[in-house]
């Protein structure tokens, strides 16, 4: 476990990276990530915001920004050269996803949607009959909004392999960070605890887990805290809609006690935040004096302090 943490932290750039995650969907990850990015920019930081919820990337939507000129995210797929193929069937044998099917004395048949792009088939082929081809899994967009560099990964609808799009978007992030200097990289993750979230958490210094005061928020927070513990990513809690009517804060306090993690921000339920969200302007810009914006500015101060 300790060893995983050691290697999991490795990254090619020295810029500090902070992840915004949370387990449950709809707790406010994107809202926190976007507003935190803007608040930090207002405090004079050079910020890169990375949307790694590649299934449903909405950071740009919250800025009312239309993303254009995306670069294709591609991954290996085999192309069988039938002039070279000797119909031995070895490629199908090593394909764990059953994307290559072999019937005796026939050329192997390829099912693209099953292919995971590992290239084992290419490695095993004794006659080099499998050539390097690629399939498009999604897009990655690099843009500038409100003085913030925004990198967004987007899975192509009907494609299944979100982890690979998250992986490639992360690589793009490092590329951009190598060329320009940033004070901080903020990463917005997908909900859940599955592999795309792991990809987003890789190489981060610490994470904020955004949750809400409900039994579902608590349950899923427990799951993400189990995951970040395994990965050795230090995690603090942001309790969103902290005072919402019908909510139940104690349940979150109990989880925090159990996992020995701290709540570093309580964002109150705020109609102004919803209005800003719908209008596509970050609340810290549109209503800087609203209760939710004030809480986010305080969180930005905490982050700045922690990055020192």
């Amino acid at each position, binding site marked *: 476990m300790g060893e995983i943490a050691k290697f999991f932290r490795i990254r090619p750039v020295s810029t500090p990276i902070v992840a915004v995650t949370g387990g449950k969907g709809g707790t406010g990850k994107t809202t926190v990530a976007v507003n935190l990015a803007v608040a930090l920019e207002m405090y004079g930081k050079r910020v890169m915001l990375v949307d790694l919820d590649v299934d449903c990337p909405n950071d740009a939507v919250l800025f009312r920004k239309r993303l254009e000129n995306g670069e294709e995210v591609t991954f290996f797929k085999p192309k069988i050269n039938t002039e070279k193929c000797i119909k031995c069937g070895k490629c199908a044998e090593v394909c764990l996803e059953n994307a290559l099917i072999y019937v005796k004395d026939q050329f192997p048949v390829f099912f693209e949607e099953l292919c995971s792009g590992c290239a084992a088939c290419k490695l095993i082929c004794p006659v080099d009959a499998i050539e390097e081809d690629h399939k498009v899994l999604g897009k990655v967009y690099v843009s500038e909004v409100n003085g913030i560099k925004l990198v967004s990964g987007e899975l192509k609808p009907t494609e299944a392999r979100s982890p690979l799009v998250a992986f490639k978007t992360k690589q793009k992030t490092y590329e951009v960070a190598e060329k320009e200097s940033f004070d901080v990289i903020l990463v917005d993750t997908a909900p859940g605890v*599955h592999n795309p979230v792991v990809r987003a958490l890789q190489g981060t210094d610490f994470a904020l887990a955004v949750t809400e005061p409900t039994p579902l928020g608590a349950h899923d927070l427990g799951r993400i805290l189990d995951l970040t513990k395994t990965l050795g990513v230090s995690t603090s809690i942001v309790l969103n809609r902290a005072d919402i009517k019908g909510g139940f804060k104690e349940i979150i306090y109990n989880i925090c006690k159990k996992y020995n993690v701290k709540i570093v921000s309580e964002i109150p339920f705020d109609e102004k935040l919803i209005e800003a969200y719908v209008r596509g302007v970050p609340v810290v810009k549109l209503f800087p004096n609203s209760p939710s914006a004030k809480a986010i500015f305080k969180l930005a101060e905490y982050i700045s302090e922690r990055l020192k």
Partner: protein
Amino acid sequence: MSLSSRPKEIVVASGKGGVGKTTVTASLSVFLAKNGHKIVAVDADVDAPNLSITLGGGKRRESREIKISHKAALNPEKCVECGKCVETCRYGAIFQPGRDKVPFIIDILCEGCGACTLVCPAEAIKIEDRRTGELIIEDTKYGFPLVTGRLELGEHNSGHLVTSIKKIGHVEAENVGADLLIVDGAPGIGCPVIASISGASYVIAVTEPTPAAKRDLERLISVIKHFNVPAGIVINKAGISESYRKELKNWIINKLKMPILGEIPVDYEVLRALTHMTPIIECNPSSKAAKAILEISTRVVEKIG
């Protein structure tokens, strides 16, 4: 079992997380069970399975391990430190701390494809079977069984796990003579969602009147249309923005050309029901939200015939 007698699958999906999938699924399931349908509920949000909590926690009848994942395991004693595995891994899951050092496989990033085993000159890497997750069957207090999947932390085989638990859902349906599977889907549009939608008879797409939820609904519908599954839309938290709600409705009808099954108003009783771990139609049947969900449920029954 002939194909025609195979229970129908109703899948609740959303794209965006936290718009109310589980709230709708829980109440719809209870409604159907109370109105003469034999159902099996399936929680296909294997990442963050919450249906059991929403239904008040059932009596666990069975749990089993699902072991369909693979990971590469390296034997440092056999390793010749050549680094070929590192170059071969397209998933960046193998690190070599330095030249002539034994590489380290970050288990959680490994896809188990076996490419590294093919290039290793020393047969130092083997592929091992690993746990993908857990499957739990419980009997809910509302008289129907619930099949839940729990994905191992960080796993990437969530789609395979969803397919497995749906299969078990069908076995369970056969056992209890159920004609309907009610599936609570995962957020997003990726692997687990595609696995949920494939084979479904009907999809209920839940959204809310915000630009982010609208964008995610658009993504979800393009996947649903690709798989050619009939679907209807539920607008939850309808009053959260009155102006945007109108815009969203127009867009759904005119651009998306999808039927709207109903709208659920903003109602704090929904949150209260959640904290009481009771579906809203049971917790407070006279609440605005419960009434709306009842209407929607009736419409869903008409749709699936």
